[in-house]
Structure formats: C-alpha cells, structure tokens
C-alpha cells in the first residue's frame, strides 16, 4: 500500500515568452521507503516536492491527474483543508535552517507553537514534548537550546532543530529538500543517520531531494533521476552506479574520484532528445 500516489504531475509558469513547464508529467508512488530525487539545479526536483504540498505560488500552476495521500486527492482539497495536511500529515525540511527558523523567536517557543498547532495541549505538556523531540535528534543540553535563538546555533544544529520541529506532529511523509547540502561532511552523516532512524522507527515515507548522487545512492532505497522537468530514469539506489541513461552516466562520470585519478574530468554532453523523451514512471 503506497502512502502517496502522484500521477502525471505538471508545474507550469506562464511567462511573457509563453508557458514554462518546470515539471512535466511526473508520476511516482511512495511507500514506507526512502525515495531519492536527484538532478541538477533547474531540473524540477524541488518543484516536485513543493507541488505535492501545493506550495507553488500563483501565477504558478500545479496540475495532475491526482496526488493521492492515503485515499484523499490533495488537489481537490480547499486551501483550508490543505493547512491540516501541511506539517501534520506531510512535513517538509528545507535546505537552509537560517531561512526556515524565525530569527526573533526562541527555539523553544517555535517548537511549542508547532506542537500546539497540531495538538490540544497545555504549554507544559508541549514543552516536555519539545524537549523529547530535541533529544530524539541528538541535541545535547536541550533545555539550553530551548532558550536560545536560531542565530546562536550552528548550521548542523539548526538543521536538526528543523527536523525535530517537522517530526513533532508525527507526519506520514517527510519531504527533505537538500537537507544536508549546507552542512559539513561529518555533520551531514549525523543528520542523515538521525533522519534514517526516525523514518525506520516511525514507518514514515521519505522523499529525499538532492543533487548529490553518491549521497542518494548511499542513503535511499529508490531513486528518480530528473532532467528538465522529467524523470529520465528510475533505479534501485544501490544499483545507481549501474544506471543506463546517458544523463545519469554523464553525471556520475563528471565526479572526481579519489580512487581513480584522471587528468581531465569528463564533461556532460547534453542531448536535446533527453528533454523530449516522455517521463519514466516512478511507480513501485
């Protein structure tokens, strides 16, 4: 049984030069798994994540045959009903914690607010839940962090706080848009393993959006590779290095490797046909 079922998703932006299609006919399902979406900037991977939550601002248009969460079609919901979905049933972690936390509000107050929006609870109960949530993402001394402001936190801590906040309502699906690209390699690992543990323990579905092929190959179960708004290839993450599409192969080859020194890196040669080919279905 899949948690999320997306069929024929389009994201369009009307411009003076005509309609620009940022996402073109993407279909996939998400079960209780870690689904990676990779691609370069401008490939439509972030737009796909946002479109699921209907976070595309007008004049942008989201169209799809359906975006089913459980039995409900998210596209049929009113804006008011969507608010009960966002954060509560589907949460999103963005790239940079600096821009997603309120800079003039203590972290504790933000966490408590997030909890009380979802649950009818008094401040005290909310506070202890918030502290538990911070402990769940391995933050030392959560009492102190509760009193601190976002600018007093490092990038890695900020990102863990964001993850804690997203997990308080216990959502069914977590969409993580480049959650670790602002972080150091050592911290990256930490944040990933925390996310991994939470996803497995709670049986959540995870959509992991990233431009880092190796990271996705390592961390996810299944990968969609996007190019100019379409899914060009779907593969098992551990088989990513056996990918067949020339675009995926080109991306993999353009990475410098420690174990295979080479004078010159291979540069990706783009074939216009890649953008024209129909989207591959990402149904499990």
């Amino acid at each position: 049984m899949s948690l999320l079922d997306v069929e024929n998703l389009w994201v369009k932006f009307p411009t003076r030069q005509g309609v620009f299609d940022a996402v073109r006919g993407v279909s996939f399902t998400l079960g209780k798994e870690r689904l990676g979406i990779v691609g370069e900037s401008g490939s439509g991977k972030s737009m796909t994540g946002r479109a699921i939550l209907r976070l595309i601002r007008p004049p942008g248009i989201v169209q799809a045959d359906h975006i089913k969460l459980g039995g409900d079609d998210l596209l049929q919901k009113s804006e008011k009903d969507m608010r009960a979905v966002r954060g509560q049933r589907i949460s999103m972690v963005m790239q940079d914690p600096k821009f997603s936390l309120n800079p003039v509000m203590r972290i504790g107050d933000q966490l408590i607010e997030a909890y009380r929006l979802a649950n009818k609870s008094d401040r005290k109960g909310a506070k202890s839940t918030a502290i538990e949530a911070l402990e769940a993402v391995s933050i030392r001394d959560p009492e102190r962090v509760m009193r601190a402001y976002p600018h007093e936190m490092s990038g890695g801590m900020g990102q863990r706080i964001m993850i804690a906040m997203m997990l308080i309502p216990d959502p069914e699906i977590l969409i993580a848009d480049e959650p670790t690209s602002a972080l150091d390699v050592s911290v990256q690992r930490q944040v990933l393993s925390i996310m991994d543990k939470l996803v497995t323990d709670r049986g959540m579905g995870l959509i992991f959006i990233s431009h880092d092929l190796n990271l996705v190959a390592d961390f996810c179960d299944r990968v969609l590779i996007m190019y100019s708004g379409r899914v060009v290839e779907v593969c098992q993450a551990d088989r990513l290095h056996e990918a067949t599409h020339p675009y995926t192969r080109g991306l993999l080859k353009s990475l410098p490797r420690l174990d295979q020194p080479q004078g010159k890196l291979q540069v990706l040669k783009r074939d216009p046909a890649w953008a024209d080919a129909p989207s591959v279905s990402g149904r499990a």
Partner: protein
Amino acid sequence: MSMLSVSDLNVWFGTGRDRVDAVRDATFDVPAGESFGLVGESGSGKSTILRAITGLAPTWSGRIEVNGMTLGPRRDRAFYKTVQMVFQDPYASLHPRHSVDAVLGETLHLHGFKDIDARVVKLLDDVGLGGQFRFRYPHQLSGGQRQRVAIARALAGEPEILLLDEPTSALDVSVQAEILNLLTDLRAERSLTYVMVSHDLAVVGHMCGRLAVMKDGRIVEIMDVQALRDRQATHPYSQELLRNSIGA
C-alpha cells in the same frame, strides 16, 4: 623555490574574552607551480588562511612570504598583481548592476593596463566565454558562467598565485567538472600556483598535489595526494575525515 611560504601564522578576531583564534601556528610551503589543498570542516580556519594572505583578515601575526618577499601589514599594488583570489559564491561575488565588461574593464584599469578593450575579449576567451557574454549582467548568467567571470577577473592582472576558496561548491556536479577542467588548463598554460580550499576531498584529490588537513585552526597533517588516495592518513582526525567522505 617556494612561491608562497607561511610560517607560524596566527589569525584572531575580537579581543578580550570574545577573542576567537581562527588560525593557530599554521606553517606550510607551496613551491612555484604546485597546487596545494586546504581541507577541514567549516570553522576550521581554512578560508581564514586565504583571507589573511590577501589582507582581508587584518589581525594576524607570523610570517607570510610571497615569491621571496615578506608581507607587511599592508598589501601594495605589486602584491595584487601576483596574488588573486576566487571566492566561493559566484552569486555574491559579482556586482549585480555591473556588466561583465564593466567588471573586467575596471579590474584591468586598476591594474594599470592601457589596451583594455582587447584584454577583455582575450580574458573572456581564456575562460571559455565568448564575446556574446561581454555586455551581460550577472543575473543573465548561470552559476558556472558567473564563476568563469570571477576567474577571468582574478586572471586580469596576470597573477602567479591564485587562491581558490571553494570555487565549485555552489555549482552542480556537471558544471563543477567544467570549472575544474578550466582551472587545470589555466594552471598548465600560465604555470600558476594554486592554493585551494575545499571541504570535498575528492575535488582536492583531483586538483592538488599536496594538502593540509585543518582542525580547530591548526594544521594537523600535511600529506601527499597519493597518501590520501591510499588512505594513509596518520592523524586520527584526517582518518575520520577520509572515512566520512569516502562513505558519502
């Protein structure tokens, strides 16, 4: 002969109890024509070393020698003819309201060149941007193209040393490959000396001959790239860094 020599470099910010020692007793030597890497996590002081060399971090002590000349507290024009820097974020390092032509023209003017028009064309050519990019503004360029402009600007004074502060970390992998290839070619053509800061060991492994691993402002280890490839780091921190990067 060493092109750049840094010994017992200390850099600090703030005073009293707010004092932060960003770099402590850093010592390394880069021979002419070599490409030297600085790796470490954020906050380890690797970018600060580059900033101290270019004079962007005023509070430092120790000794910095460029091409045999010891640097004083101020940098003169001759210094900037020899040493130039390329910054991490091509989106932030170009003036949004100056066209490519204005950016390069002004730089050339400051370096005291007369034949600016011909040189702008030549520079753009050298970094693989054609003449059609000359009158564009930064918002009309992609990230990779902007970084090429930033590299062209650094090359304007015909420097001998390029300091590269994470030149590709804001770019896609496919574009990263193009920029790294460009830097490799330029180094070969102009026999440049590079000091490159990166958190990506694979990039440093590809570009550099030797590298220093930094932690908490100190250089914990200087090793050959071959040792890096063979996973022969001796310091426990470098071993950990290697493990983290290879896994990723």
